[in-house]
């Protein structure tokens, strides 16, 4: 994300001009903008003109500033739609008229906020930080199923999902098995070539239970040689093989946990999230009284100053109710002040998704609190 102009007073009003560069940035913008903020961007609007020969409607490009009322993030399409009322004097659009702005990549926009709280500043800082991208392409497969995922800094996108029915291999059906497997690999190779761009990602991981990954790797290299696909041949060394227990999407956690992959991405947010989540799980299994989840339980734990690590998804910050947002922000601040660590999980990542399913907020405690069990969730 490029920050073209910045004029911000911490905890006060301010204006920034931004240009999102990749889909990660759009996600950050989505987290940044809240209802009540003002966004100005170039947009198109259908305008009715009464001309000779009848009404004519044209799409006119204009600069509009709107006051945000609702937002919609489209992950796959990499577009952020912001709906709100127009507040800028404009010859085509009256003040107070509704409009939906579409923020796209490489298009600048100006964001004006009333209060730039610490979280917003954090996000802004993160956005302008060029390093620390996870940028991993993972092919999670098992016999008959393959998922190609792109793990970004804060977003994990499923590029493609391939399913095939592969018969068993004994007796006369062996030939069928071989050919079905071959067709399946062909499809995966094609998807791989299409979605995996070695200029953007750091490394590619092929993960599967059993030996499917080895078979596929072999096949991939052979195909690359045969069809002379330059990117793959040059980047052979950047392809890692990892063992997982299944080809389903939630096994991505295991991939990120693997030491070989961890080495590559250790300084990134995604890896940190996975580590923290794993710690939480370990604590829950070893000493359940020292881990809790759910807003009520975490709230109680916090009152007793027992929270050591707070895990929270950014979903909760996006609630339109300012008070809830404020409450969670205060929680994060207080935990940090009390000497604990607060991790904000991106809900678009695998571990963030899992945390979101556990109500979105969890905590590892300093001291065991066994009576939490009795309190209703």
């Amino acid at each position, binding site marked *: 994300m490029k920050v073209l102009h910045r004029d911000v007073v911490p905890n006060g009003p301010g204006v920034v001009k931004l240009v999102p560069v990749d889909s990660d940035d759009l996600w950050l913008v989505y987290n940044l903008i809240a209802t009540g903020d003002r966004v100005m961007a170039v947009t198109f609007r259908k305008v009715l003109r009464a001309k000779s020969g009848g009404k004519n409607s044209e799409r006119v490009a204009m600069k509009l500033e709107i006051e945000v009322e609702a937002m919609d993030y489209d992950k796959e399409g990499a577009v952020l739609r912001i709906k709100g009322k127009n507040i800028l004097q404009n010859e085509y659009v009256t003040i107070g008229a509704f409009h939906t702005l579409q923020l796209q990549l490489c298009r600048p926009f100006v964001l004006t906020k009333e209060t730039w709280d610490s979280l917003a500043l954090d996000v802004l800082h993160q956005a302008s930080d060029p390093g620390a991208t996870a940028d991993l392409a993972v092919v999670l497969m098992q016999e008959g199923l393959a998922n190609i995922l792109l793990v970004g800094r804060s977003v994990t996108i499923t590029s493609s999902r391939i399913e095939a*029915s592969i*018969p*068993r*291999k*004994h*007796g*006369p*059906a*062996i030939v*069928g*098995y071989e050919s079905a497997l071959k067709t399946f690999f062909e499809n995966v190779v094609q998807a791989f070539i299409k979605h995996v761009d070695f200029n953007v990602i750091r490394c590619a991981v092929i993960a599967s*239970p*059993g*030996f499917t990954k080895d*078979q596929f790797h072999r096949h991939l290299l052979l195909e690359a040689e045969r069809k002379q696909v330059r990117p793959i041949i040059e980047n052979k060394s950047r392809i890692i093989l990892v*063992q997982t*227990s*299944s080809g*389903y*999407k*939630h096994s991505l956690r*295991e991939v990120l946990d693997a030491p070989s992959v961890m080495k590559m991405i250790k300084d990134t947010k995604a890896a940190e999230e996975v580590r923290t989540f794993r710690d939480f*799980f370990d604590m*829950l*299994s070893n000493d*359940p009284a020292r881990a*809790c*989840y*759910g807003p009520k339980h975490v709230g109680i734990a916090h009152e007793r100053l027992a929270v050591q690590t707070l895990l929270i998804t950014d979903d909760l910050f996006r609630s339109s109710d300012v008070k809830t947002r404020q409450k969670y922000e205060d929680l994060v601040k207080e935990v940090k002040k009390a000497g604990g660590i607060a991790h904000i999980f991106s809900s678009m990542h695998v571990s963030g998704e*899992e945390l*979101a*399913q*556990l*109500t979105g907020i969890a905590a590892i405690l300093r001291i065991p609190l066994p009576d939490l*069990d009795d309190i*209703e*969730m």
Partner: protein
Amino acid sequence: MPRKVNYGVDYDDDYDEYDYGYEVEDNEETPPEQETIKRSVWRCAVCTYDNDETMSSCDICGVLRGPLLKNLTYDEKRAGFNSLAANIFYLKSSRVHSIVVGEDEAVKVSSKRLDSSDVSTAKDKHNRLDEITFNMQSSGKSLLSLMPKERNVMVANSSSSRNGGKAHDLASNLKNISFSAESGHSNDTNPGRANSYAQYKPEKWMLPGKTEHSLAQLNLAIVGHVDSGKSTLSGRLLHLLGRISQKDMQKYEKESKLQGKGSFAYAWALDESAEERERGITMTVAVAYFDSKIYHVVVLDSPGHKDFVPNMITGATQADAAILVIDASIGSFEAGMDGTKGQTREHAQLIRSFGVDQLIVAVNKMDVVDYSKDRFDLIILQLGTFLRSCGFKDSSVSWIPLSAAKNQNLVSAPSDFRLSWYHGPNLLDTIDSFQPPPRDFSKPLLMPICDVIKSSSQGQVSACGKLEAGALRSGSKVLVMPSAIIATVRSLERDSQPCTIGRAGDNVAVSLHGVDANHVLAGGVLCHPDFPVAFAKHLELKVLVLDVATPILIGSQLEFHIHHAKESARVARISSLLDSKTGKVAKKAPRCIVAKQSAVVEVTLHEAVCVEEFSKCKALGRVFLRTLGRTVAVGIVTRIVEV
């Protein structure tokens, strides 16, 4: 005619001896007087033959059952109420009877089944297990919804939901019957058809005659830790019993030596793919057949690797009995018994939860330890305690020392003098000593599809699997689920030889006609067109968590295995924690479930699978939850929440 046997309703059959103290779970709602009206046989008044509970008319003479109707197919609880309603409907039965006869080829139909369903609506608030009624009432769906097989319940329920809950409305009954009569003629599947499950009358050819087949079927799964010698043992057995010709054997030996895997010569009889041979492992379950003195045995040789446990599950789900192969050599046995890395434990637990209670523990590779009796005894001691904790009764576990490589104690008494301290039976005799498992001949057809073979040359599709219930023969119509297409059986094959009739318990390859190859998938089910199996995404399960490290929380992502299907699943809700000893609800909505606890949970699957409640069909009601390469929980389907 043999006495038909009843099986218990709850899954406590399989779990009641788990060391976790999980005991027989009585339905807490069962009122005390129902204890006496257990699932039993009823005596025909005319020919005095003892009929199964599910039969509404006598098997031999065809007389309809008398007014005092016992319980329905699944639920004793309704029994008391049934008798009341039965009296009311007895007179009307003949009219209803005729309508139903018209649409169903099953001739002798009990109309009285319908009345009990009416009654059940009144009762349904008492029936926690009566989820179908509950569902019908709550969702108010029409008969066209995909619901499980308890048709009679559906009939009345939808009628009552339409008529505002009036329990004894015969008119509505008739309306429903005519409704189902119409839908019965449509060729495309109307899965919600209201056919009474008990209306299904097996045709004469479906039930086995005494003279027809002298050898009973036995599906034998061979499991154990990786490299314990399972494939070699199976290969040896097949060779000794003449199923592999000498020429084939020599070919295997020569080729395996060429590849540098001379010791795997016998295993190559079962591991046929290039990948398996190259790596020297079994990756998918191999099926082979042989005959012992009493049984026609189907050998299901499973993979032992940790990564291939899902394959082992789909293979061993067909098993009636199992052989657990142990490697006796020093270090290997201990490695197998290891909690996290060894497969001996996991396989034993899985086998037990498949409902297998007869087990042979074959202690293989005895030649490596010089046939030492001490080693054998040590293994018995350690493994024995574990098996007891899984729920295997000591009397149904046999221990046999043998050596597959040296052909000791397999089909004949050991020749090696070092094994002379062993006086028990050899392996083949022990297989013969297994009890024949009960079979569901008289239930409607159910065959989970294990494998699909497409022969593009003839455009044929063959579905392989074990018939769990009912029977098939060429020409019968079957319903292929989940695609819900009706196909006809072109031919049946068992053991690479064509056969005319396949019955419950047989492992057959069914060649189908009238369906596209893409619609027949492994994990699907072949069923009777009138009794479609349900498929759903949202299920309620009663699970027992094995002793693993990770707890199960709400939102946990797991892999869900049921018969031959596997899906990615998420725990939607943990409804209650059950007390392991009494089975009663100990705590509602707990935070998480940890090792050795049992609970009722709701899971949401990624895609719908064909499933039946455990009480209706055991084979389609058993589930396994796995994550991170380990089996975390085993359970049964108690309720299908919604599609």
